[in-house]
């Protein structure tokens, strides 16, 4: 299997998060894997649990909902609505983490193909800085428990 490298995460503005990754596949297949419930179930939870529900009503104004049971046994749900759809290229959708229903983000997925490979970008736009911070805080707990041994690389990693 071809490994296409790791995801890159940057914080382009105080209310944004940008995730970038390249895939060794044409964009219509990435789009298919992103929008087909049975396929989403196979990858969306990563190594953190099992996806138990994927509902996708793929049309502008249609809604989506994903539920996953994390390895700790608790259930986490996310849902939203599709705002823009350009097949194989772009999806703009809202996303609400059901554990924090006041914080709605707008996610823009962009797929760009070059020589059969696809660059995927997900721009997460939070409605305000506080919600992005909450998103950050919720993801930070695990990281905070880790050893301090990477400390010296901090400056380098931010360049």
């Amino acid at each position: 299997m071809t490994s296409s490298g790791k995801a890159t995460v940057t914080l382009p503005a105080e209310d944004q998060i940008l995730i970038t990754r390249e895939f060794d596949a044409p964009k219509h297949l990435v789009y298919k894997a992103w929008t087909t419930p049975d396929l989403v179930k196979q990858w969306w939870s990563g190594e953190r649990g099992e996806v138990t529900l994927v509902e996708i009503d793929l049309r502008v104004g249609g809604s989506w909902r994903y539920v996953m049971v994390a390895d700790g046994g608790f259930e986490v749900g996310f849902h939203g609505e599709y705002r823009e759809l350009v097949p194989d290229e772009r999806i703009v959708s809202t996303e609400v983490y059901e554990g924090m229903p006041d914080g709605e983000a707008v996610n823009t997925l962009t797929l760009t193909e070059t020589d059969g490979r696809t660059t995927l970008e997900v721009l997460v736009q939070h409605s305000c800085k506080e919600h992005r911070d909450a998103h950050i805080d919720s993801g930070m707990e695990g990281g905070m428990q880790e050893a301090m041994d990477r400390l010296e690389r901090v400056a380098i990693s931010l360049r």
Partner: protein
Amino acid sequence: MARAATTADAFNAVAEPRRRQILDVLAGGERPVNDLVRLLGIAQPQVSKHLRVLREVGAVDVRVEGRQRLYRLNGQALKPIHDWVKNYERSWSERFERLDVVLEDLKQKEQGDGFDDE
């Protein structure tokens, strides 16, 4: 949440592009404010304002040497960001590694005999 917290932590401090530039420069070593003014091409009051924010969250330390104030990066204050980004990156990387497998499967099906769409 009160808006007063705007620059109270490392995340907010580095959300401003100019402040990230300052950190980039200081990552290369200690610098007086004049160097930052020259390298960034912005006026000293602006640089000083950004340095003040960075110092408030501990991302930058200052020491006096002769008539100069020298600024340097304090990586430890940025560790929460580093941790968060790494953790978030790892979680997306794991997700995308599984997506690689799905895509490999789709590619093979597509390259197969052409009428095997399930």
